């Protein structure tokens, strides 16, 4: 590669990095600023008077403002906090159940010689082509009847309709990429079919399965449409609609910013922890 090309590539990478990181960094910095400073001075990056007051107030405590006056706890604190808890519960449940359904399905579709294999895979994957909005009305009517509206279980089920096809699709290509005679070799080595799966196939595809789980978690954590329509205003409301209502009803950017940062933390931590697994996985075509 010529030096010039390398310089151009590095500049492009830097641009992409700034493009991605800058808004997040700015949100973080805003969340560490007093509203007074943010509203009164010209736009600047680093807060002159950095503070954790916005966070403290979200967690139900009073905190001193820039001039020392005590501000009461943030009124939206409970909503944001229960939203985070609900989101975590829903996302974990979605992750576990997605794996329970998608891994065996993907494995069978990829490795077991059976009729209608291709058709089965296509049918499952085709459901991904439906935008969530298209299924909300039927879901809503159904949930009214079944009493699943405003429940975390209802949202978990709705999220599974998104994650399972996605994970089956990913998993099929992962399992399909394992060496052809792997299970046969395990059988000859003394494994039963089940043991060949647990002792050989699962460890051999642990990277891919970690990536699948991470994607299921992130998909559920970020999901907005179902969460907004089914659970808004209920005790089962998750973080994205909670943040959205806070955003539309509170005109204090520094407070909204601190809530936003709280919502960003779990996916950020997970993505960082598992990034080496995700990186190894070919996501082309997804």
């Amino acid at each position, binding site marked *: 590669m010529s030096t010039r090309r390398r310089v151009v590539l590095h500049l492009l990478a830097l641009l992409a990095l700034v493009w991605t990181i800058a808004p997040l960094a700015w949100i973080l910095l805003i969340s560490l600023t007093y509203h007074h400073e943010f509203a009164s001075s010209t736009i600047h990056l680093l807060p002159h008077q950095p503070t954790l007051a916005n966070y403290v107030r979200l967690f139900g405590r009073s905190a001193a403002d820039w001039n020392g006056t005590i501000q009461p706890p943030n009124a939206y604190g409970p909503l944001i906090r229960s939203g985070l808890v609900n989101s975590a519960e829903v996302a974990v449940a979605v992750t576990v159940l997605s794996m329970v359904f998608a891994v065996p399905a993907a494995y069978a579709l990829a490795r077991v010689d059976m009729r209608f294999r291709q058709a089965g895979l296509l049918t499952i994957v085709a459901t991904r082509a439906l935008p969530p909005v298209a299924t909300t009305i039927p879901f809503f009517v159904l949930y009214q009847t079944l009493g699943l509206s405003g429940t975390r279980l209802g949202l978990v089920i709705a999220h599974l309709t998104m994650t399972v096809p996605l994970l089956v699709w990913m998993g099929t290509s992962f399992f399909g990429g*394992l*060496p*052809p*005679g*792997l299970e*046969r*070799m395990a*059988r*000859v*080595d*003394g*494994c*039963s079919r089940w043991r060949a799966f647990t002792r*050989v196939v699962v*460890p*051999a595809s*642990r990277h891919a399965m970690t990536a699948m789980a991470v994607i299921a978690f992130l998909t559920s954590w970020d999901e907005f449409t179902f969460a907004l329509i089914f659970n808004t205003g209920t005790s089962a409301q998750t973080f994205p609609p909670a943040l959205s209502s806070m955003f539309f009803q509170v005109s204090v950017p520094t407070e909204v910013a601190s809530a936003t940062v709280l919502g960003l933390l779990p996916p950020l931590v997970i993505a960082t922890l598992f990034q080496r697994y995700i990186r190894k996985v070919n996501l082309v075509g997804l």
Partner: protein
Amino acid sequence: MKTSNVGVAIDAVSKRYKSAKQPALDGVTLDIRPGELLALLGPSGSGKTTLLNVLSGLESADDGRMLFGDQDVTDIPAERRSVAVVFQSSMLYPHMSLRKSIAFAPRLNKVPDAEIEQRIADITGWLHIAHLLDRRPHEVSGGERQRAAIAKALVSRPALLLMDEPFSAVDAQLRRQLRSELVKLHREFGTTTVFVTHDQEEAMAISDRVAVMRNGRLVQVDEPLELYRSPVNAWLADFVGVQPINVLPVRRSPSGDTLQTADGELTLKPEGRAFPDVLDLGVRPEHIKIIASGSASPLRVYTREVVSGQMKYTLRTDQGTEIVAIRGSDDVLDIDTPVDVAVDWRHAIAFDSTTGERLDVNLAKGTAGVS
């Protein structure tokens, strides 16, 4: 370090896949001797891999029985059969070090760790891979992977070692090297081995006996040289041998003691007389001697090639009858040189001209002139 050798008896085993017109195995009966290295040879689709899978227990037979020694294994699944398989691909677990892959089966079978270590040290020493044991499969070369796969197969001391075209994915030079290592290893360990291949040269080179399959049936089971010298039919005669055998459709000439080609241009004179009026004459290129050249001969040199330091000539009559002959390279013949040939009748084989089966006819001790 010898393993216990068992013989294997395969008795009338049949197998038909759903939606297949022909059975993959059609009443195969075969005795494999204890400690023998048997090559299972056949073109693709002949059923040799199916037979291997049925032997391993990975697939079940529709019909027939199989015995390992005295034990009937017909209904015993693969994991409890004491077989090891070296596959064509996927020879090792991709997520394990070579050591772990090799130790996997004996560990499952609860062989003590110290014993496993000892066996691994022995076998990998033999295979020159002892220094690579902590690497993953993708970190070693193709040949080293193959060696590790063989070590993996031998370490559990199977009653029967099955190899499914294990060297087909490596280059020709390495293949030859691995082949001769396998023969040495077999001498050392003496495990009863079935080696599937479609490469007749490979089968002939390594095995004690060769079982040739075609269309799900056994065609012939014999020692390599016997197979080469006395193939049961013309198809097999053509299938084994580096150079294709000459098969000339001939008939008895009016005089009664010679054979004429269909175009009447070539007359060959076997010593024996007890041959049928019509037959296919099989002669390998090395058993045809180019004896003299005379301008009256109808045969001329049509093409020539260098084969392993010798000259391979294709001779042809005006009518298009072709004979391939091998001759030393000291005195190279020019294209279009008229030549005569002599057949070494001891090695000439008579085949039935309609069925292709070998005829029990002795053509030997004659010389042939060409008129």
